């Protein structure tokens, strides 16, 4: 055999970068690769929503295992903790994938047509925005604390593949939010109205996905008027609330449908798909943590006992009792773990909308109540909100927050809902409460970043 050949072996199971833009299929593969970056176990595949939930007060840690989030639950995360590093790394690894796609498409303009290129760039910006939003809500002080004047995270906007550029200073929280909004606005303009299948509509970003995420981002920023503006694009004026253009998002009659029988209905705006060949198992899997391995049970003094959540509520069918202890079984398909992980659900958009309606400069309490009621009555049709809870913006907001805890339990919202409102994290079990002035209120920037990025 020829010496030159054996000295230059070509890997047969990986692709060298130079061949990446040879075919349109490989470009599409890279677009799917960005979503796959979101889906890793340490990110939206399971660990990220789990960390957000267990920092709040709804769950009790049973086994004191730092590999299943004990540090986050107990607020003992430090800059050397695994969860501080893996969340950070997973988000930035995905950001780099989006930047490489954006840079690569610009460098190889003729592999796919201009319209497709624009769509792919839109998808990349959506994914990048979701990553930065995840980072800033974990590692940055709340926007509302000082209108984003606090230090945020480094804004990486170029693809990185070489040893250069280790150093980059942190942008402010406001700068990061501005970039998120810019990316989402661009994405909204570039993304298709819909795809060819329910599966694609649920697992890739289309226009309404970008809009839906904007309602969440603006809510975090306390810019309620803008939440309303965005929400109106995807929520009709009259019931049943639905999106008039693009994918026709609306609530399903039974919430169980979304979690057990069909993961790709119009209620699921954006979810992480799971298949036998591609699923998240083990200690980052939500089904493993909450149900199979019983790492966490529901806190008896958390939302579980709230009067707004009555026994007949169909959302209680997603709980299970073992003795007197209650467990969440929203994610129940084990070995393989095939439950999709929801990232954006239509009920969240409705609750974002309702909260903004109640908190905007000129509150619309009637409309807010109607939207809130639509979410609640879907699962407990006989329930009406007492007048006392809907008569003032403050009371209504509180009712909406309670509703979020019921509706979105185990979907990764609790920590952010406390932090965006500067509320203390309540104590639970043996874990203490944490106020917004304590350093434990947010995650520390990981040590690995501090030691190699000299401009932090």
């Amino acid at each position: 055999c020829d010496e030159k050949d054996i000295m230059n072996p070509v890997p047969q199971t990986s692709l060298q970068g130079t061949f990446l833009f040879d075919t349109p299929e490989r470009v599409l593969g890279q677009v799917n690769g960005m979503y796959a970056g979101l889906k890793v176990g340490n990110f939206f595949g399971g660990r990220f929503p789990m960390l957000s939930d267990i920092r709040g007060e709804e769950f009790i840690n049973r086994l004191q295992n730092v590999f299943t989030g004990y540090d986050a639950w107990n607020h003992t995360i430090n800059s050397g903790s695994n969860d501080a590093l893996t969340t950070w790394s997973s988000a930035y690894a995905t950001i780099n994938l989006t930047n490489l796609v954006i840079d690569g498409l610009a460098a190889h303009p003729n592999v796919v047509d201009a319209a497709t290129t624009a769509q792919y760039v839109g998808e990349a910006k959506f994914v990048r925005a979701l990553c930065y939003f995840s980072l800033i809500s974990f590692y940055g002080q709340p926007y509302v604390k000082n209108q984003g004047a606090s230090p945020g995270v480094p804004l990486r906007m170029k693809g990185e593949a070489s040893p250069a550029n280790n150093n980059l200073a942190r942008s402010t929280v406001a700068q990061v939010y501005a970039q998120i909004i810019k990316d989402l606005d661009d994405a909204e303009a570039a993304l298709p109205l819909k795809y060819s299948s329910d599966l694609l509509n649920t697992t890739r970003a289309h226009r309404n996905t970008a809009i839906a995420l904007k309602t969440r981002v603006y809510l975090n920023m306390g810019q309620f008027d803008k939440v309303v503006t965005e929400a109106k694009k995807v929520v009709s004026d009259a019931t049943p609330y639905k999106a008039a253009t693009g994918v026709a998002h609306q609530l399903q009659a039974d919430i169980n449908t979304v979690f057990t029988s069909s993961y790709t209905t119009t209620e699921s705006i954006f979810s992480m798909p799971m298949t036998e060949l591609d699923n998240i198992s083990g200690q980052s899997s939500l089904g493993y943590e909450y149900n199979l391995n019983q790492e966490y049970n529901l806190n008896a003094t958390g939302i579980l006992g709230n009067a707004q959540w009555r026994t007949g509520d169909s959302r209680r069918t997603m709980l299970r009792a073992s003795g007197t202890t209650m467990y969440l079984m929203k994610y129940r398909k084990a070995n393989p773990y095939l439950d999709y992980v929801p990232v954006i659900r239509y009920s969240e958009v409705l609750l974002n909308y309702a909260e903004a309606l109640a908190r905007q400069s000129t509150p619309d309490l009637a409309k807010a109540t109607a939207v809130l009621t639509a979410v609640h009555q879907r699962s407990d049709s006989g329930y009406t909100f007492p007048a006392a809870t809907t008569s003032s913006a403050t009371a209504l907001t509180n009712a909406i927050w309670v509703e979020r805890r019921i509706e979105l339990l185990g979907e990764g919202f609790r920590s952010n809902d406390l932090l965006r409102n500067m509320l203390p994290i309540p104590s639970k079990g043996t874990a203490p409460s944490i106020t917004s002035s304590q350093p434990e209120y947010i995650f520390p920037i990981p040590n690995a970043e501090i030691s190699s990025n000299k401009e932090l």
Partner: protein
Amino acid sequence: KVTEGENSPLPGVTVLVKGTSQGMTTSADGTFTMECAPTSTLVFSFIGYSSQEVPVNGRSSISVKMGADTKQLADVVVVGYGTQTKEEFTGSAARVKGDAVKDLPVQSFDQGLAGKATGVSIGQPNGVLNNPPVIRIRGVNSISLSSYPLVVVDGVPINTGNVAGSSTVANNPLGDINPADIESIDVLKDAASTSIYGSRAAAGVILITTKSGKAGKPKVTYEGWAGVTRAVRLPKMLNAEQFMMIKNEAVLNSKILSGNANNASVASELFFPMYNADGSLVDTDWYKEVYQTGFSQNHSLSVSGGSESTKYYFSTNYSKQRGILKTNEFSRKAVRFNVDHKLTSWLTLTANANYNNTLNASPNTGSLEGNAFGLVGSARLAWLSAPNVPVYNPDGSYNLSTANTLGMGNNQVSSNFYNPVPMLDLNKYTSENDHILGTFAADFHPVKGLNYRISYGVDRLKIENVTFQSGVHGPGYPSGNATNTSIAANNWDFTNTLTYNLTVASKHSIGLLAGYDRQKFDNAAWGATRSNSADIFFNDFQGSYGTIIPANNALNERALVSVFGRFTYDYDKKYFLTVNFRRDGNSALGAGKKYGNFGGVSGGWSLAEENFYRNSSLAQVMTGLKLRASWGKIGNANLTNWYGSLSLYNSGLYGSAATWAFSQGGNPDLGWETGKQTNVGADIGLFNDRIQLDLTYYRNNVDGLILNVPQSPSKGIPNNAMLMNVGSMYNRGFEVGVTANVLESGKFSWNTNFNYTFNKNQVTALYGEGTEIVGTTSATAETSNITRVGYSVGSLYGAKTDGVNPENGQRIFINREGQRVQYNHAVPSGQSRWTYLDGSAAPAISVSDYQLLGNALPKFYGGFNNTFRYGNFDLGVNFTYSGGNYVMNGSKGTWRDQRFWNNTTEVLDRWTTPGQKTDIPRVVYGDLLSNGSSFPISENVEKADYIRLQTASLGYRVPVQLFGAKSGISSVRVYTQVFNAFLITKYSGTDPDISSNGNSNLTPGVDKNSIPQGRTFTFGVNVGF
């Protein structure tokens, strides 16, 4: 009659009448009859024995005892692509004879080298069978690449390391070589000797020569031993009563400290007894359930013989060894055949082939690299499982909780750990090798002194890994899953060498070697995991399952293409010179960096051969004196990632859509690490060489270290690191070897060998100002080591502690500012767990407070080997020792953890009353931090100095007359032996040699949740026919 050894007859000896051509050979019983003049002299000669001249002096019957030509055997040094006499050799090497390892109860010969070769440090990482030892020749010579030496068997560099790629089963391919087949082991240490292996020589070279036939009557040898192994130095755990007392005290302390002393809704105790049917307290000794007395046996049979033209050696081996842990087994079935045939006066053919089947079976021990924190590790389960719960329920079923963990009985807490017994009973982890090692060579020697050798070697290793995890309990719950993986590691080596030896004017000896070598490694692995077993009846991959997904697929290739040469010269056996050169190409490196030039030069001066020296008075005492020096440049590109220089994208799935994503940041400029070694030494013989001294000083400067340079995680580079050539370090040291024939009086003799190596390792540069490399135990589970400029590689790293506060029983830490900070695990809501000693809130101790806690690499090590003989008895006593380093006794953190885990009896000394001085903090339920279970603390750093009685053996040569001449038995030796007899150390863990991170350079000296070593007693017999 001609005899040898213990008066056994020696057939085939040539007997010549001196000065004539009259001669004959001895018959099968060693006798000969010939006619000759009574004044003549007979010359007896036989290969491998010293020739003797015996004057007849008119006798009619002459008995001659032939002595082995020890000079000829002992004084050869196997060097790369050839041999040199010890006299000619001017580098630095150590030689261990096969006999020294053949009877040891080990799986692979490398485990038996401890203390036997100067400069070579061997650490057995734990008692898991066939676990590759940690071998360091003159220190750690790389940071990110392998520091495992190159192993060359009969001329072919072979695959080493834990080849299974299984996180559960150890599989050292050197265990595929029967130690009894080894003639000699030569360890090349200095660059001038190793540079003939160019780019692969940085960690030293171990050359294995297997036995070959000797002309003469067929010689049959049987070697066998049987023995038992038991775990030693296991710590004593709390019994059920003590466990409940300590844990309930912790629960109550937690209640009080969290301000709930008067809160009836907070439990005061959580641990309660269970009783057996007979009313006795359940008190489970988990050691009994997990550990065992392992029984082992080993049998080897060999036949060797041949004529002057054809020599052969044939052997077979069966070994079945059981470890200290239940279900840990090693078995080997092997055959070897070596043949050497002189076809014509100018052509010799050599072939040798070794086939073996080796089966490694092991439970998950938690003791292999990356496993220290698993929920399934037997070592940890035996320690932390609650003693007040049973293994089985009264109905005989396993004691399990509803959450698939160990049932906690009446205790009101849950465990996230498994019941170790069903794990041992139901799960299966094996790694099986079918290994063919063979070479075929032809030597052409058309004229005297000239030899052309062409040789083809194969090292074909087929590994099958089988994993079954039962759906009843453990990691396969509830589906039951089976993973089979097939790995083919193909390695071929094609070598051409031309040698020419010439003596000019009787005093100038010249040797020339030129060669071309091409070696290729092809590794392919494929496999699948089947899960959702149709029925718990199925225990194998081949059963019925609902799901199958691909697993462990990989395809890799690597090639080395080299030319090399050597020039040797000596003048009158006084002045010696050797020059080596190799140009190596390695496919794993960057496009323009694949080829490198390496070489070395060494010289020697045999002072003792000089007339002026011989006439000096010093020569009366110092009968031998040779000075030698060498310098060489070698490389290292032992990348575990054969495509490390390439930027790669991997394909995967997003649900069911195909993906491509950045998977490896490649460095196209990736080149060699370069080591420059200087070596100066002297070989000294005293009192007619009764005492031989070997003194060597060396220094090795390594530049262009390939480092996995950390990248800011915010860049999003896969694994947050890229391989780059930066950094440098050195190893400096000296070696002393003393071999002495201490006493020889009548039937009694005492031979001893003492060796000592001092090594200093220091990192002199990393990847920039102020940079350091953090090492983590078990993937990223725990930051445990740091590599920092000015210190040795992989120093221990963690939080500094300062005992226990006698006032309140809290652990005191020292933060980065040098302030004392104490930790209280249970505080009222809103208060800080971390406080200064005055009680004011303090920031939590984190990685930024970590400090360097001690050097983890031994500074000195060696062995002290003694052989005593008295008549037919022989006694061997071999010590090994090592020291100057520290070990992180991480297992101690486990033993003192205040979650639901059981503790060692040391915890009985915990703090209970103000003013009490103790090193065990007040027990507070849930406290995982104060004792170093959550992150490493200096409290658990201990000195690792030790002396070990590695082996002691007592043998007896049974007089063969007992068996009668008809038995054909020519020699019998019976012996008994103890391996790892005892350890003298202040280290309080199980063994200071333990390495939870295996052979990793960056994380040495960590003992975390590993099983201990075993002590083995054997009884054996060696029989010759």
